[in-house]
């Protein structure tokens, strides 16, 4: 065979192998991370872990109950604030967003999406913590909501735009006013996609630490009071991982499994919501 041909074939083979290896390495890092999580933390996941609060430094035992509850409350509050605004803004962009205001909102959403979360954190500190005089779960929730809104606006807009124009026309021709067409027909059809986008957004903010550092601050005790500092899983992991005690490190791994589990659950649920839609639309 022509030597040039052979060389090209060899190059083809080598490069194919190379991209395969690179992909393998990328996946490998994932396996290493998740694997270590499980290996180092699974043994600490006992009943105490989920139900007890942290014990004084240096002592053993104790759990992350306050952090689990804290994350739930802060994320829940953030959703309460962020979901309506984010989805509403997304609907605006899809329905009325072809003008100058629409362009501005879209541009701003993209800018906010790229803003480092620590910057959002210090902004929330200035606007909520400083005036109030103390840290609070509410401030943390607002910071997370600020992160959530632009994300949701873009994904909601994208999902609503996917609905065929003919559907909208059919509703209008039936005598549906524009607002009802937008809500009852278009948004309803795009609902699975909107839900997916929301779940992905919630998964993102559930894992955030930086915005909570100077807002929710963290709390060694169990607290459900939203105007007080509150513990969150991500904060707990950070405090334990960077602390001096081995006991803390052990707990950090376990807490990381819980946080990762939550994020995974939300991500899988997001995927499931989309699949349901494809299943129905046969």
């Amino acid at each position, binding site marked *: 065979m022509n030597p040039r041909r052979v060389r090209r074939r060899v190059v083809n083979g080598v490069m194919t192998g190379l991209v395969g290896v690179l992909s393998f390495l990328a996946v490998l890092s994932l396996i290493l991370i998740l694997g270590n999580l499980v290996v180092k933390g699974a043994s600490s996941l006992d009943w105490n872990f989920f139900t007890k609060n942290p014990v004084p430094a240096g002592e053993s035992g104790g759990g992350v109950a306050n952090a689990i509850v804290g994350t739930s409350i802060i994320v829940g509050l953030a959703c309460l604030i962020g979901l309506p605004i984010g989805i509403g803004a997304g609907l605006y962009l899809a329905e009325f967003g072809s003008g100058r205001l629409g362009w501005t909102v879209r541009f701003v959403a993209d800018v906010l999406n790229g803003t480092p979360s620590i910057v959002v954190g210090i902004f929330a500190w200035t606007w909520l913590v400083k005036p109030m005089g103390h840290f609070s779960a509410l401030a943390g929730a607002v910071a997370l909501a600020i992160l959530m809104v632009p994300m949701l606006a873009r994904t909601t807009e994208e999902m609503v735009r996917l609905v065929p124009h003919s559907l909208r026309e059919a509703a209008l021709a039936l005598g549906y006013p524009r607002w009802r067409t937008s809500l009852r027909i278009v948004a309803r059809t795009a609902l699975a996609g909107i839900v997916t986008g929301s779940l992905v957004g919630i998964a993102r903010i559930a894992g955030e630490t930086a915005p909570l550092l100077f807002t929710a601050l963290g709390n060694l005790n169990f607290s459900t009071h939203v105007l007080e500092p509150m513990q969150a899983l991500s904060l707990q992991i950070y405090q334990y991982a960077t602390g001096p005690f081995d006991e803390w490190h052990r707990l950090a791994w376990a807490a990381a499994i819980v946080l990762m589990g939550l994020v995974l659950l939300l991500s899988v649920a997001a995927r499931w919501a989309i699949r349901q839609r494809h299943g129905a*639309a046969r």
Partner: protein
Amino acid sequence: MAPPADARLQLEAVRLTALYGRRAVVKDVSIILPAHTVTAVIGPSGCGKSTFLRCLNRMHELSEGGWVTGTVLLDGDDIYADAVDPVQLRRRVGMVFQRPTPFPTMSIYDNVAAGLRVNGHRSRADVDAAVERALRRAALWDEVKDRLRRSALALSGGQQQRLCIARALAPEPEVLLLDEPTASLDPAGTQRIEELCHELKTNYTIVIVTHNLQQAARVSDYTAFFYVGDLVEVGRTEMLFTTPTQERTEAYITGRFG
């Protein structure tokens, strides 16, 4: 064209011009569409027939840059008057589109009831009766009566189109506008819909846009021929097809262009 004896409900276009921005796609059209008849609107692609249809239920103005001059009278009332709510109008003038568009998140029952529910609250019994009546009129009842709660997407293309017709009929419009309703259907589905036109005209006034000349000949009482925005000729279907008065009409019908 002389109006027929029964002029109870007529749709009448008076010097209707439909434009996109500065471009007129329907030019100074005046036509009477008599009650309880089927009028076919024919013409080559881009002649403005669909746009004309969409002027009859004020859908044209929903398009980017769409507006009209002149007017359309429904039973003598100007539908373009300032005080008229287009949403209300569209409940009296229904439309079925080229491709079937059942609402994907609704069942068959809910699809048909959609136009009713938006009109105000009715009792369950009323809605049930209206849904059955509409499905019977669309010749779909027997095929779906056992699966009303199933998704509308499970139906075949032809069935979906008949569903859309039932959906348009349920709110009891006076006029039914059909925009190439059989364009995406197979021959069996097409035949079914054409039969429907015959049956429905007893109770409704029908305007059907079609690019299929044989269909126009089969289905309609009157035919209007459009060419590049102008209404070239309109008259009784048999007359238009056998002895057209305009040269362009004859050229189109005999297939010299299309």
